[in-house]
């Protein structure tokens, strides 16, 4: 039995699933539009599956008491597989919409297939589906090892993982049916937002309760970042999604803020979603997998401290650089720009700390594709943070804003940093989780690495070119002082770059498919009973709190 619940845990899981099923049924039956009915039914169906599983295994023998001396990795295992599945789905939809921009007639005369509805599906599947599952899975893994403590609440951990994926499923299906707030990266409607808030609070509680059980006096750096990720994302999510539903039985809502205040709140959210979801969380991953995989200790404890607090403080000011030359008051724009430039210091402190950690292990980078994924991620992290600070400067932003340069920048971060570090972490963890020496095929890891890096480089170069050409064409004047190009002229000039971008994305997608296959085969061919090799927990539980 995957969950390994005790009788008491089975009972609380049953109660929880029953409550979720009732809430789902309520919306399925009482909802006044198709969206709320469908999503209520999805919620009820998910809870019914959980109920069925719990009922069927209710009388299974209880797990032995010695489980308390082992880590609890069920949610991590499922989370890793879900992350890989979402990666493939997200890359597939991303590449599809890339081709849509090249050939817009692929929409089958249907609303769900139009660019506007598929684009949030791509961003959410990659950020929340792939990134979020990778973060939750690795955070549970790392939290236990660095605290030398078993997860505090197995039911809670499953609730977090499965509840989060229910949120992803509701969000994704909602976009296709037209449920969106049209707030970038915060598209899901009010009921999905409330559900995510519940899940997220449970996540924080599981995290804190496990930390409270730790048998290490110090909280390890990775956990600082995961904590910042959980806490700040909670605040961002709640504030930016404040809205009044038209009715509690209808899916539509209107956001609490409007106009300029909404714009500022949105980009405070949007930029810090990058800062705390796509940066802080993944830095937590880096601080664990880099030293373990390279066999080298983190270069500097003090640099870790400086970069952690620097990122936590500076990031939160940077959002307004998305609103240069707009109706946002100039003083806010200037503050945003200033802090964005200063943000380079803690960002490069992290990157430097990580690169110097590799000193003495560079031969491993040459030989080990998993470690190379992590190393390349550090390089792209350094590159994107430099580029980000540069693009936040007002006069640079005048050219880059609204163009494909932004898209190139985001993908240098998302493909080069986020996906690479996540793949590195997954390739490192999967053999550990399924008690094997290595992945099913190290050659395929190598293949994935080169596909990923080729795809990223092609993508980013294409978007740099198209973005800068676009920006320059929009502001080019003829000698007589009139605009030289119509908007359509700039669109025509983009065509070859859009094709190149879609090819780059395709390579990245193929890499993801290779990765999913490799992970799947590693799990399938894993030995049934293998020797335990894991970071040890103390043999006798220490009952005094760790101070």
């Amino acid at each position, binding site marked *: 039995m995957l969950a390994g619940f005790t009788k008491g845990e089975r009972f609380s899981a049953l109660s929880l699933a029953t409550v979720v099923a009732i809430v789902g049924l309520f919306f399925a039956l009482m909802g006044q539009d198709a969206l709320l009915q469908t999503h209520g039914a999805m919620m009820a169906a998910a809870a019914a599956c959980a109920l069925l599983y719990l009922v069927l295994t209710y009388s299974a023998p209880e797990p032995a008491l010695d489980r308390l001396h082992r880590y609890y990795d069920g949610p991590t295992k499922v989370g890793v597989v879900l992350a890989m599945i979402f990666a493939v789905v997200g890359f597939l939809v991303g590449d599809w919409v890339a081709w849509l921009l090249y050939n817009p007639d692929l929409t089958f005369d249907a609303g769900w297939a139009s660019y*506007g509805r598929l684009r949030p599906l791509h961003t959410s599947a990659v950020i929340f589906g792939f990134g979020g599952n990778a973060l939750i899975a690795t955070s549970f893994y790392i939290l236990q090892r660095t605290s030398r403590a078993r997860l505090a609440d197995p039911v809670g951990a499953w609730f977090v993982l499965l509840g989060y994926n229910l949120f992803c499923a509701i969000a994704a299906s909602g976009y296709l049916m037209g449920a*969106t707030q049209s707030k970038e990266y915060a598209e899901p409607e009010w009921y999905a937002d409330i559900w995510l808030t519940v899940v997220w609070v449970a996540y924080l509680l599981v995290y804190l309760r496990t930390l409270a059980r730790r048998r290490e006096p110090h909280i390890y750096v990775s956990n600082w970042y995961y904590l910042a990720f959980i806490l700040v994302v909670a605040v961002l999510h709640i504030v930016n999604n404040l809205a009044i539903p038209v009715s509690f039985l209808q899916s539509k809502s209107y956001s609490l803020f409007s106009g300029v205040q909404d714009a*500022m709140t949105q980009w405070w959210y949007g930029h810090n979603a990058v800062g705390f979801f796509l940066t802080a969380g993944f830095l937590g991953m880096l601080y664990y997998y880099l030293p373990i995989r390279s066999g080298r200790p983190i270069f500097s404890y003090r640099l870790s401290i400086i970069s952690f607090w620097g990122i936590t403080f500076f990031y939160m*000011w940077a959002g307004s650089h998305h609103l240069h030359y707009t109706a946002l008051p100039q003083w806010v724009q200037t503050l945003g720009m200033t802090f964005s430039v200063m943000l380079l210091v803690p960002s490069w402190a992290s990157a430097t700390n990580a690169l110097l950690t590799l000193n003495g292990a560079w031969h491993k980078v040459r030989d080990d594709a998993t470690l190379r994924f992590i190393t390349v991620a550090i390089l792209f992290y350094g590159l994107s943070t430099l580029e980000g600070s540069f693009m936040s400067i007002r006069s640079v932003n005048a050219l880059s804003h609204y163009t494909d340069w932004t898209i190139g920048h985001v993908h240098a971060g998302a493909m080069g940093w986020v996906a690479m570090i996540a793949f590195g972490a997954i390739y490192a963890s999967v053999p550990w989780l399924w008690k094997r020496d290595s992945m099913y095929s190290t050659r395929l890891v190598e293949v994935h690495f080169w596909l990923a890096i080729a795809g990223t480089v092609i993508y980013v170069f294409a978007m740099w070119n198209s973005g800068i050409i676009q920006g320059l064409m929009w502001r080019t004047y003829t000698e007589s002082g009139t605009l030289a190009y119509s908007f359509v002229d700039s669109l025509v000039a983009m065509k070859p770059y859009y094709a190149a971008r879609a090819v780059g994305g395709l390579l990245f997608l193929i890499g993801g498919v290779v990765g999913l296959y490799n992970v799947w085969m590693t799990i399938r061919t894993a030995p049934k009973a293998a020797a335990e090799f894991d970071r040890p927990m103390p043999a006798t539980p220490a009952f005094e709190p760790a101070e």
Partner: protein
Amino acid sequence: MFGLHYRLERKTIGFLLGIIGVSSIGGLIEIAPLFTIDETVEQVADMRVYTPLEQAGRDIYIREGCYGCHSQLIRTLRDEVERYGPFSLAVESKYDHPMQWGSKRTGPDLARMGGKYSDDWQRAHLINPRDVVPESNMPAYAFLQRALLRTDNLGLRLATLRQLGVPYTDEMVANAAADAQGQATPDTALAEGVRRRYGDATNISTFAGAAGKLTEMDALVAYLQILGRLTNAAHEMAAGE
């Protein structure tokens, strides 16, 4: 300092409070004053609200995710003002819950799209953009022409927006569904009601042109035709300079 941290990182709750404190400063200083400083949003006398049909169109614009390719904010840069019109003022999106300023121009900015093209052009363009702009890479929205507009929920939607501070009157909320119909059927009693409640400048037209039935295409065209025309303040400001 590092000694202090050495102790702090042994306390879960202390560390948690530290993160909350350090991370909240930036947002508080940048966002909170926007709600209290009066100059943030200009005061203009002629600012009007969206009619029910225009708001329904706006809801469709949001549903279809148009912000992915179109901005609604003209920056204070010479080339943008010459290409799109006077730069956007804060007041112009005062009633936009949420704003649709956007972040990407795969297609052109739409902040001053209203009145730039005829209703017929807008409809033809939405049905198949490449019929009127051969180079366009915008998806076709022909399905909007086939979808009847749901008007029964418009009263509730206007009432919700009123709760958020948009100055709809009781009469506007009560007549929302009829007014949506009326704005698309010129020279009828319904149309007269729209004019009375929303002013003589209201754009009353057959929009998508299909007589008798009100489609989502009507609503979206009505919305596109009001973009940038809720107030004349931006034009007056540009003329005054």
